[in-house]
């Protein structure tokens, strides 16, 4: 059936003219067979209206009322709705002219925004010549939880998930990258310039390959004069200067170096090396994570903060709770001014801007300066007596009640849990 809408101006005119003798007949005809009429003449001669039948559902799922007469939207909308919704164009590169290798950090097992920006940059390099497109090859180390590699712009995916790559294993990872270099010889190596991860691995790789890497790259532009066809702008001198140079084979890029891929979906086809990896000689041994005293962690980078304000009365109980929960201590300005907490523990605009994943505010009403300081926290829990305070509005979970009693109950709950776990361990 043709998609072209055929209009009959005369019938539309009749549909608009409520006094026309054929008005209702034409309305019913234009409204379609399935649609129930919104207005009809009842058996007693009265005009009956069904207000729910007025209008039609538009392409976005919103009800539209068309006062012009003919309600012709219903069918057209259904036809269009099937193709609504953002769909990505599928791209499969069968015979790539070259490879751009990317080693994403996969912090927390998922592609970070830094990784996605870097993959966007890799796509920019790969797709520069539409006649001879290159493929983006991503190399992942260790186990990960990422499923949408294709949407990030990855054509080929090589996973190194053996146990030797887990933890801190720069030598094993470098050996794997070298094997990829020998077998596939990518045109460019792109890594995120993050302190532990791409920044370190990329520098090791560059030195091993004998390339002078461009580090802290934040802009890449096409340049016909450069040997690689690209030139880059990189931060130098600890951020004080910009260095402009031709793009080398190995580049370590900063976050927001390019726009992430948003319009295409790529194949992310798995790829393996033809030869097994050689046994790497390791001189660096990972001894595992070390338990850190939460009180010694800098407030700005603490993961879990128990923060106290004016509502806390029993300070010993509060310190005990922080120790039991394993939380870093924070405080509002009032608690610091009153001398209950040291100045370096103050959270907020005049103190420290914190980035905790979980921030528990005990007896803090939430002055705007304090709320600014916790802007970047993921989850905020508020314990407060006043249900109308600003901290409750900000909090993901708010418990209204006496702070002392709730903290005590929380400590008891955590201790009970720990005892249970220990007993289980003893039984096992």
């Amino acid at each position, binding site marked *: 059936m043709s998609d072209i809408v055929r209009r009959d101006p005369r019938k539309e005119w009749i549909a608009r003219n409520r006094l026309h003798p054929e008005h209702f007949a034409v309305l019913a005809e234009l409204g379609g067979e399935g649609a129930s009429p919104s207005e009809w003449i009842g058996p007693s001669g009265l005009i009956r209206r069904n207000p729910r039948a007025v209008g039609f559902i538009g392409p976005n799922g919103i009800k539209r009322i068309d006062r012009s007469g003919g309600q012709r939207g219903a069918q057209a909308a259904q036809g269009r709705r099937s193709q*609504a919704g953002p769909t990505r164009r599928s791209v499969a590169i069968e015979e790539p002219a070259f490879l751009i290798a990317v080693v994403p950090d996969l912090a927390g097992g998922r592609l970070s925004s830094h990784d996605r920006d870097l993959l966007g940059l890799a796509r920019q390099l790969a797709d520069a010549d539409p006649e001879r497109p290159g493929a983006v090859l991503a190399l992942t180390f260790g186990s990960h939880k990422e499923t949408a590699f294709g949407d990030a712009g990855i054509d080929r995916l090589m996973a190194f998930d053996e146990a030797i790559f887990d933890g*801190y294993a720069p030598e094993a990872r470098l050996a794997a990258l070298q094997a990829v270099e020998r077998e596939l010889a990518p045109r460019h190596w792109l890594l995120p310039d993050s302190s*532990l991860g791409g920044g370190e691995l990329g520098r090791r790789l560059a030195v091993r390959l004998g390339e002078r890497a461009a580090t802290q790259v934040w802009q890449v532009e096409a340049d016909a004069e450069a040997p690689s066809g690209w030139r880059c702008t990189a931060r130098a001198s600890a951020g004080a200067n*910009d260095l402009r140079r031709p793009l080398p084979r190995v580049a370590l890029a900063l976050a927001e170096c390019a726009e992430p891929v948003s319009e295409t979906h790529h194949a992310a086809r798995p790829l393996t090396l033809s030869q097994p990896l050689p046994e790497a000689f390791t001189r660096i*041994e990972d001894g595992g994570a070390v338990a850190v005293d939460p009180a010694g962690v800098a407030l700005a*980078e603490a993961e879990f903060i128990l923060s106290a304000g004016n509502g806390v009365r029993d300070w010993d109980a509060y310190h005990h709770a922080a120790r039991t929960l394993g939380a870093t201590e924070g405080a509002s300005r009032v608690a610091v001014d009153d001398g209950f907490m040291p100045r370096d523990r103050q959270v907020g605009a005049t103190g420290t801007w914190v980035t905790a994943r979980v921030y528990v505010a005990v007896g803090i009403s939430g002055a705007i300066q304090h709320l600014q300081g916790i802007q970047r926290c993921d989850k905020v829990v508020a314990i407060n007596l006043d249900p109308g305070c600003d901290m409750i509005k900000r909090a993901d979970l*708010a418990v209204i009640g006496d702070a002392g009693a709730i903290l005590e109950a929380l400590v008891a709950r955590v201790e009970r849990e720990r005892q249970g776990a220990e007993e289980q361990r003893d039984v096992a």
Partner: protein
Amino acid sequence: MSHDTTKQASGGLDVAVLVSVGRHPLTARARRADHDARAVELALGLEAARVRLIHAGRNDPDSEAALRDYLGMGFASLTRIDQPAGADVLPALLEALREAAPQLLFTGSRAETGEGSGLLPYLLGEALGWPVVTGIAAVESVEGGTATLLQALPRGQRRRLRVRLPALISVDEAGPAPRQSAYGPARRGTLSAETRPAETDDALAGWTLEPARARPKRLKIVKASSARERFKAAAAKAEGGGGQVLTDVTPEQGAEAIFTLLKEEGVLRH
């Protein structure tokens, strides 16, 4: 009493620290580089170690004042390998290090002037054949040809590493805060100059180094296909709000709710 006299008396571990001339981020004056000063502080914290400072660079009054800041941390002397401006210091440093043959070599993670790519520790490690470990916050022990180190991870976490000596340790912001430089020892200390062949860095000379431009702010791009989506994107509130509020609960119920959230987020350790 300066530190290295006690350390020289006891002998033991041979440690070298590579130091550079830094640049103050606001005043742009020459100073001791922050990461390098932290590396010096870390080396000074070692038990029974002979610590020596090595610098390769230009010989001018500004850098001498900055180098004396390192001497003020408790050293009697500093080895300065004189190199002309624009020289590649790697060959000279390699030669000096092969002669000195320290067991542990500390560096900052990157220079504060020039290219500042942070490649030097890796280049040295590769050329000397030593393992390189980065972001070290503390040295726990050095015994039996193995150093046990603590590496700084994000969020204040630490990871224990064991590395075989000789090794190269690079230090960044996570290193211990450097002690204040004392004026008297800084004046009294000597800068002993060494002359080694210099190579010019031709590649760097061909690139342009200019004051950093502000990076453009990323715009929020709304790819809306319909008027409704555009309206939603424009009218969306910055903060969702709508958290769960528990009123009229016993402290135990409130504590249980908080405990569940802490468990879900995985911040409670056992």
